[in-house]
């Protein structure tokens, strides 16, 4: 999609490319190389995204990070990764800068560039509301920026619908520089696979195995924090927890919804239109907690970040450094918030997925092995389209299994050597 020329062209996905690069970040990286001189931002789905394979929820955004200057990758989950797959486009290369604000509308095999001047200046929540209303479909998934991205902040984040995403690379700024307010996704497509019966049989078998896994009986960000050693996390946030929910086909509900303006125990549909917030960023919540914020204040900061379209991890880190604990003052600082924030060491993948095993030990003897393990585990998740946090809690999703699923799904023949090469290529 050439925003400068307002032109769209389509290419068939080549089996040979899939055979070598697998999918997801393997192919977005390859496409990045092909369009590098036009400063592309690339959306992609993993090979298994949107199937019945457990945790096949992942979509990937690849671009040059305003924070590091190098090619990096961000995950997007909820239902947006799956929805991208069913739009009919596995990969979307966006180049150039539009003359005026636009959003991309991908649906049912059709790609449109649409005027977005009326949304420019709006926050993330109002933009998603406006796009859904204008299309008459509340199930549209959006990758969307707020004022932070429009103003060119290096801390700007591409959000998913109303919520944070795994974008810790400043990709919100890249959208803003292209005058791209959002990408709207909705698909009613059909995904055919090579050996459907064998594939589905295997999916059921895997699910049965992992249902009894180490994470059984756990849910939400608070149990993840507990697994990371934050023993009082559950008590801390419990007074606000409404429900837990999962990203597409993900057996563990990684998202915790808190009610801030309603009784969290309310079961019926609340009258309040915006009663709370969906917490899906473990790292940001942990940093705010450790900085001494109350659970309510931390949730209010995260909500403000999502509306403004700013990376909550960066905000949490900079606030902790300044000692600020007042959520209103933290929000007021967004406009000209600057500063160096930490990025994952040695990887191109987002630290949105905690850099350690969760619930299960993966046979790792000590913490010194976590770094290399995490990079390889994330590479695997980003290639195949597996939820990157779930990948850290389910050792049952092994590389051998992924190869088997690849072969059943595509009818091609993936070897361990090719997988090793694909992982090495995306980690370079």
């Amino acid at each position, binding site marked *: 999609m050439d925003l400068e020329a307002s032109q769209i062209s389509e290419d068939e996905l080549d089996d040979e490319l899939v055979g070598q690069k697998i999918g997801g970040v393997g192919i977005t990286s390859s496409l990045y190389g092909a369009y590098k001189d036009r400063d592309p931002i690339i959306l992609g789905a993993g090979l298994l995204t*949107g*199937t*019945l394979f*457990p945790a096949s929820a992942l979509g990937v955004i690849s671009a040059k990070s305003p924070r590091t200057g190098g090619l990096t990758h961000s995950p997007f989950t909820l*239902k947006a990764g*799956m929805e991208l797959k*069913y739009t009919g486009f596995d990969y979307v290369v966006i180049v150039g800068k539009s003359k005026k604000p636009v959003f991309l509308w991908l649906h049912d095999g059709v790609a449109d560039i649409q005027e977005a001047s009326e949304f420019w200046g709006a926050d993330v*929540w109002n933009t998603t509301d406006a796009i859904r209303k204008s299309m*008459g479909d*509340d*199930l549209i998934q959006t990758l969307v920026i707020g004022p932070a991205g429009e103003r060119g902040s290096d801390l700007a984040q591409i959000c998913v*619908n*109303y919520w944070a995403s795994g974008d810790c690379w400043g990709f919100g700024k890249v959208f803003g520089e292209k005058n791209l307010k959002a990408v709207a996704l909705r698909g*009613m*497509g*059909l*995904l*055919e*696979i090579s050996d*459907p019966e064998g594939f*589905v049989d295997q*999916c*059921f078998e895997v*699910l049965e195995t992992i*249902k009894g896994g180490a994470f059984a009986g756990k*849910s939400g960000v608070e149990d993840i924090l507990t697994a990371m050693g934050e023993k009082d996390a559950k008590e801390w946030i419990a007074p606000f927890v*409404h*429900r*837990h*929910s*999962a*990203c*597409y*086909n*993900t*057996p*563990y*509900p990684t998202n915790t*919804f808190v*009610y801030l303006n309603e009784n969290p125990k309310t*079961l*019926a*549909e*609340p009258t*309040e*239109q*915006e*009663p*709370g917030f*969906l917490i899906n960023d473990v790292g940001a919540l942990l940093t705010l907690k450790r900085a001494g914020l109350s659970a309510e204040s931390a949730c209010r900061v995260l909500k403000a970040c999502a509306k403004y379209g700013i990376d909550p991890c960066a905000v949490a880190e900079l606030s902790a450094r300044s000692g600020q604990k007042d959520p209103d003052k933290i929000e007021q600082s967004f406009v000209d918030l600057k500063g160096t924030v930490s990025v994952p060491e040695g990887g191109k993948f987002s630290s949105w997925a905690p850099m350690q095993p969760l619930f299960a030990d993966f046979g790792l003897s000590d913490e010194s092995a976590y770094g290399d393990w995490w990079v390889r585990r994330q590479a695997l998740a980003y290639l195949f389209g597996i939820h990157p946090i779930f990948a850290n809690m389910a050792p049952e999703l092994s590389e051998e299994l992924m190869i088997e699923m690849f072969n059943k799904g595509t009818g091609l023949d993936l070897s361990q050597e090719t997988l090793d090469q694909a992982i090495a290529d995306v980690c370079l």
Partner: protein
Amino acid sequence: MVSGILVWQSIIYLIKQGIVTKPRRRIVMRIDVDALTCIGCMACEMACGYHRDDAFALLSSCIVVYRTREKKDYFGVVVKEEESLKIARPEGLEIKRIGVTEESSDSGQKKEADASAKPMLLREPCDLCSGMKYGPMCVKICPVNAISLVE
């Protein structure tokens, strides 16, 4: 009264003699959803779509996670059955008879159907995955056992 007793005695006699068989209770199986246990992952929806289309797709599923109130985190599951829409809400089960227009109890006005319900009415009703070796696929795929097959 007397003739009624005689009729029943005659039937019991015929059953004992094996001349007629005992009338059997008709067992109806259906899908039951615990909306509070549901985590809204949509695996059931995709599994149902697979049963309908022999490929992965959502358009034909007769079980759907309704998720249009995203900012309120209000979600549940709708199942289209032969004669009704079963809506498993967090606060309880609601069954809407297809083709019956309801009136709002407080205003007397006709209830406007949720936009997301309209496509459901055009879909095939649940057949408990007839012909599939797995049984009802939504039951099998649910990672938190929120869906069950009940009598």
